[in-house]
């Protein structure tokens, strides 16, 4: 086994902890303690391994979860904001817009419209090369 594997295992445990508990308030110092590192050392190693500081990683996980929930549930923006662990709707809205180029509300509306369109005209979303080669279009029109 590579001599650094134990170090990586501790970093990965910390990352997976954030993946699983993003919806709850997470104390990053507490995570560093769990990984048996000082906060500074943990921050440096985490960033080197995953390309982002732990706080940034946690924020991105929450934003990804919010994006998914907005697209797949009927929850309001406020409900999604709190469900993924943010504690302020205005700052959530700002972060979401910065990350994905549109507000949570606009994103949700666009997703709902797209899903309605998928249900109505699915082959508008499938490249014709696949749809025709595999006979999907033909079979679905029968």
């Amino acid at each position, binding site marked *: 086994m*590579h001599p650094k594997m134990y170090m*990586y295992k501790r970093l990965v445990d910390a990352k*997976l902890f954030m993946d699983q508990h993003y919806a709850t308030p997470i104390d990053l110092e507490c995570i560093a303690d769990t990984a048996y590192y000082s906060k500074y050392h943990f921050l440096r190693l985490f960033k080197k391994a*995953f390309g982002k500081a732990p706080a940034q990683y946690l924020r991105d996980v929450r934003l*990804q979860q919010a994006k998914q929930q907005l697209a797949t549930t009927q929850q309001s923006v406020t409900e999604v904001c709190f469900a993924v662990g943010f504690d302020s709707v205005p700052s959530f809205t700002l972060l979401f817009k910065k990350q994905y180029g549109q507000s949570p509300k606009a994103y949700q509306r666009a997703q709902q419209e797209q899903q309605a369109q*998928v249900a109505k005209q*699915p082959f508008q979303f*499938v490249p014709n090369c696949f749809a025709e080669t595999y006979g999907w279009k033909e*079979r679905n029109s029968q």
Partner: protein
Amino acid sequence: MIQRMTHASVYVIDQARAEDFYVNKLGLELKMKVPLGEDAYWLTLSPREQPELELTLMPIHNPNMFDPETAASLAKLVEAGTFGFGVFATQDVFATYQELKAKGVEFTKEPKEEFYGIEAMFKDDSGNWFSLTQFKAED
């Protein structure tokens, strides 16, 4: 002049299981899921930092795709690990290797120094193999 690739296909045994594997284990983002009838979907995913490339998970066992005999032969080859579909790049192969292992991904090669970087290899839930590589930094 070909400029870029936008779609690449991977044949999978079970689309629902493969979706779970590629999203929840590999961490790819679901891009499109369009029902095509017969429990089959046009199902595409992208690496988080490469949204312009969509990996299409194609169902083998679907009458729209192959006749039963062809599907059975193809499934056998896929499950036997015959096909390799590509290389996933990572900035730290040891970290990603540990993470994927912790999530239950089966590796067929541990991270090893190669002339182009450090490479590990893993299988998806159907049997397709992929390289996971930390490429050498360019000078």
